[in-house]
C-alpha cells in the first residue's frame, strides 16, 4: 500500500505541486493523468526522491508504513530499484550505450547485493525472457543500439522488476512508441502486475490508455489533483470541469463537412523510392533499400486525405518525394497535373502549390528570425510583395493570432501558438495542398482540439486540400474524408475513413485498430447523452 498525503513541492520557490494525496492499494494499477506542466512527472520523481536541485518537499509519502520523504539518501538508494522502481518516457536514451543489456539488468541485483555475479547474470537472462526478449534473438551480450525503441523499453522494464518491487512507476512509458508496440508494452505491464502482485503507477496524458489499464484514476492540473476515483466510475460520472474538458478534448471531433471535388490536386502513380543501404561488409555493396514501393493514390481538391502508418513505414520518405525534395526512382507524382521533379528541376510556380506543417513546434522555426520573417519565407518562391506586412498580418489573423505577433521572436510563444504560426506560414502563398506531417502529435490534448478545429475551419473557408499524416488513429478519424494505410513502403488499404475504421479489409489495419487504446463506448454515451 503506497499512500501520498498532502505532497507539496517547490523548486527554487516556484510551486510545482500542491497538496497531492492519493493511495495505491497493493496489486492495483493507478493512472495519473494530466497535460504537460500538470506536475505528474514531478509527483513520480518526488516519490523516488530524484528531484532536481533546489527542490523543497513537504507532506508524507508512505510505502509499507515508512515515510519515504524522511529517509536519508543511502536508505533511499536501498529502496530504489528494490522496493520502488521507475521506467521513463524515452527508451532510446534510457540505456547506457556502452554496456550490454545483460549487464545492465544484472546491475540492479548486484548493486543491492542480492546475488553473486554469476547468479545475477542468470536472473538477468530470465528477466529478459520474461519481458519478451528471448535468448535466441536477444542474447545478453546485445548492446542497446542494436535494439528498437520498444525493445529497449522492455529492457528497462526487466531492470525495474528484477528485484520484484512493490511499486513500479511508469512515466509515459509508451508515448514515444508506435501504436502496436504501445499495446504490447501495456499488455506486458498488465501481465507483470498480476503475476507479481505489484502496484503500478501509470503516468500518461492519454485518457484512452488509462481507461484500458487503470483500476483508479487521478486527474492533475497545474500541480493539483482535481479529481480521482475508480476508473469506470470517474469516466461515467466526472464532476470537475477540467476533467470534463480533458475528456471532451481527447475525443474531440471538429465540425466539418467534407467537400471533395472532382479535380485531382495530387496524383501519385507507382512511386518507387530507394536509397543505398549502409555497407556492412567491406567489399560487398548491399541491395538498395526500397522505402516506398509502388505507391499509388489520388487526392482531390477540397479533400482531406489521411496517411496512417507506424515509424519506418515510409510515410516521411513519401512526403519528401511529394514535396520535391527527394527524387523518385520509379513512377511519378503530379501536382495539379504538373510532374514533380526533385531538386532544382521543380519550378517555383509549382513549389508554391504545396506547403507543409511539421510535427515539432520547437524545431520548425529558425530561432534567430522574427515571426514576420519566418512567415514570409515562402515568398522566396514568388516576388516579395510590397505590402508584405499586410500579407503576414492576414495570415496570422486567419489562424487566430494577433497581427503584432509578427514583431516578436518565436521563443516567446507556446507550442500551440507556434503551430498556428506554422499554419500561417503554410497559408501565406495560398497553396493548393497543405501537408500536415504529424502536425498535432506533439501538442497537449486540449490544444490539439483547438488546432483541429482551426484546420477544419480553414479547409471549409479557403477550400484547401490536406494530406494529413499521423500515427494517431483518433485524430485521423476526426479530420479526414479518406484514409491510406501504409506498411513497409506499401499502401495496404485505402478508402473512406469511416469505412476503413469500422470495417477494415486488410489484417494490418485491423491490427492497428485493435492496438489503439480506446475509451469504451458506453462510458462515452453518458457524455453525449
Amino acid at each position, binding site marked *: 500500500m503506497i499512500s501520498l498525503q498532502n505532497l507539496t513541492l517547490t523548486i527554487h520557490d516556484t510551486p510545482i505541486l500542491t497538496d497531492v494525496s492519493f493511495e495505491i492499494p497493493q496489486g492495483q494499477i493507478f493512472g495519473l493523468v494530466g497535460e504537460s506542466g500538470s506536475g505528474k512527472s514531478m509527483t513520480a520523481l518526488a516519490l523516488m526522491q530524484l528531484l532536481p536541485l533546489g527542490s523543497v518537499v513537504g507532506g508524507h509519502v508512505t510505502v509499507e508504513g515508512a515515510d519515504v520523504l524522511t529517509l536519508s539518501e543511502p536508505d533511499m538508494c536501498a529502496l530504489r530499484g528494490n522496493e520502488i522502481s521507475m521506467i521513463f518516457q524515452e527508451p532510446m536514451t534510457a540505456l547506457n550505450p556502452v554496456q550490454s543489456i545483460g549487464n545492465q539488468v544484472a546491475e540492479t541485483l548486484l548493486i543491492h547485493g542480492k546475488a553473486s555475479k554469476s547468479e545475477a547474470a542468470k536472473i538477468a537472462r530470465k528477466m529478459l525472457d520474461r519481458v519478451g526478449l528471448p535468448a535466441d534473438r536477444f542474447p545478453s551480450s546485445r548492446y542497446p543500439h542494436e535494439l528498437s525503441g520498444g525493445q529497449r523499453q522492455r529492457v528497462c522494464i526487466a531492470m525495474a522488476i528484477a528485484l520484484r518491487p512493490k511499486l513500479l512507476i511508469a512515466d509515459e512509458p509508451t508515448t514515444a512508441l508506435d501504436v502496436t508496440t504501445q499495446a504490447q508494452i501495456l499488455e506486458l505491464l498488465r501481465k507483470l502486475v498480476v503475476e507479481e502482485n505489484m502496484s503500478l503507477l501509470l503516468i500518461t496524458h492519454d485518457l484512452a490508455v488509462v481507461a484500458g489499464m487503470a483500476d483508479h484514476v487521478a486527474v492533475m492540473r497545474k500541480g493539483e489533483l482535481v479529481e480521482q476515483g475508480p476508473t469506470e466510475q470517474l469516466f461515467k460520472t466526472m464532476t470537475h470541469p477540467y476533467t470534463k474538458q480533458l475528456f471532451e478534448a481527447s475525443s474531440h471531433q471538429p465540425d466539418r463537412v467534407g467537400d471533395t471535388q472532382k479535380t485531382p490536386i495530387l496524383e501519385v502513380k507507382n512511386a518507387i523510392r530507394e536509397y543505398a543501404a549502409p555497407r556492412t561488409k567491406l567489399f560487398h555493396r548491399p541491395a538498395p533499400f526500397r522505402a516506398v514501393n509502388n505507391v499509388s493514390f489520388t487526392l482531390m481538391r477540397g479533400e482531406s486525405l489521411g496517411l496512417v502508418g507506424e515509424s519506418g513505414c515510409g510515410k516521411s520518405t513519401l512526403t519528401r518525394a511529394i514535396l520535391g525534395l527527394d527524387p523518385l526512382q520509379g513512377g511519378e507524382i503530379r501536382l495539379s497535373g504538373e510532374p514533380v521533379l526533385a531538386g532544382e528541376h521543380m519550378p*517555383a510556380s509549382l*513549389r508554391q502549390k504545396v506547403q507543409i506543417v*511539421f510535427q515539432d513546434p520547437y524545431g520548425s522555426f529558425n530561432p534567430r528570425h522574427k515571426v514576420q520573417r519566418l512567415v514570409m519565407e515562402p515568398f522566396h518562391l514568388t516576388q516579395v510583395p510590397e505590402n508584405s506586412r499586410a500579407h503576414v498580418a492576414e495570415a496570422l489573423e486567419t489562424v487566430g493570432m494577433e497581427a503584432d505577433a509578427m514583431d516578436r521572436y518565436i521563443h516567446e510563444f507556446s507550442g500551440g501558438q507556434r503551430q498556428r504560426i506554422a499554419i500561417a506560414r503554410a497559408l501565406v502563398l495560398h497553396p493548393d495542398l497543405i501537408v500536415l506531417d504529424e502536425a498535432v502529435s506533439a501538442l497537449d490534448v486540449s490544444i490539439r482540439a483547438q488546432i483541429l478545429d482551426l484546420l477544419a475551419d480553414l479547409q471549409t473557408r479557403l477550400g484547401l486540400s490536406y494530406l494529413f499524416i499521423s500515427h494517431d488513429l483518433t485524430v485521423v478519424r476526426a479530420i479526414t474524408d479518406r484514409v491510406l494505410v501504409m506498411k513497409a513502403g506499401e499502401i495496404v488499404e485505402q478508402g473512406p475513413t469511416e469505412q476503413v475504421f469500422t470495417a477494415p479489409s486488410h489484417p494490418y489495419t485491423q491490427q492497428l485498430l485493435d492496438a489503439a487504446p480506446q475509451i469504451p463506448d458506453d462510458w462515452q454515451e453518458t457524455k453525449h447523452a
Partner: protein
Amino acid sequence: MKLPVQLITGTILTGFFVVAVALSFFWTPHDVTILTIADKLQTPSAEYWLGTDHFGRDMFSMLMVGARTSIAVAIVAVGIGMGVGVPLGLMAAANRGSLLDEVIMRGNDLIFAFPSLVIAILITAVFGPSALNAILAIGIFNIPVFARVTRGAALSVWTLDYILAARTCGKRALRISVEHILPNIANLLIVQGTIQFSLGILAEAGLSYVGLGAQPPTPSWGRMLADAQTYIYSDARLAFLPGIAIVLMVLGLNLMGDGLRDLLDPRIRRER
C-alpha cells in the same frame, strides 16, 4: 542575474593588452630600436619601469611592441583559419556524404597530421624564417580546426525541420547555409575563435623562441625569452617578464572565451 565575472575579468585583461598595442604605435616609454648598451641589465626604476634588457632596451617598451607581433600573428592566423575553414565546413555539411565532403574531410586530416611547428619548419627550410612564416604555419593549421567544428555544428542544424521548410520554399544549399545555418552556429564559432586566438599567441611565442618566427630587430615575446635564457643565472627578470606577459594575455583571452560561451549558451544544466 549572476555577474559574468569571468567575462569581465577576461575582457579587462585582454583589453589592457589591446590598448597597449594600439598605444605602442604612437608612444612607448622608450624607443626600442635604440640600443643603449651602457644601460644594460638595469633593475626597475623610475626611468625604466621594468628595467632594461641585455642591450639596454626598456623592458616595458619591449613588451608593448612585442605584444604587437603576438596579436598580429594570432589574429591573422585566426582570420585565415576562419576565412577558409568556415566556408569549407559549411560546404562539407551542405553536401554531406558527397565526394566534396570526403575531399574536404581528407584534406582536414592531412593538415592535422602537420602540427604548426612542422609546417613552420617546412616553410622555413625553403623560405627562411619570418613573421609571415609563423602566420602561415599557425593559420594553415587553424583551417581544419574551424572546418571540423563548423561541419559538426552545421550538420546538427541541417537535420532540423526549419531547414526542411526553407528547402520547400525553394532555397538552395548556399542560401540556407548563409541565412539559416551560419547565424545559428555563429556563437560556437566565436568561442572557437577566441580559443584559437589564445592558442595562436602561445604558438607564436614558441615559434619565435626557436627562431622560426619574427626575426630581430622586430621584438617578439618568444624571442625575448630565447635571449633571456643566457642570462637566466644572473638576471632571471629577463625571463620572468615576457613569460608573465604571455600568461596574462592568454589567460585574459581564455577567460573571455569561457565567459562568452557561458553568456551565449543559456542552457543551464542541473545535475540530479
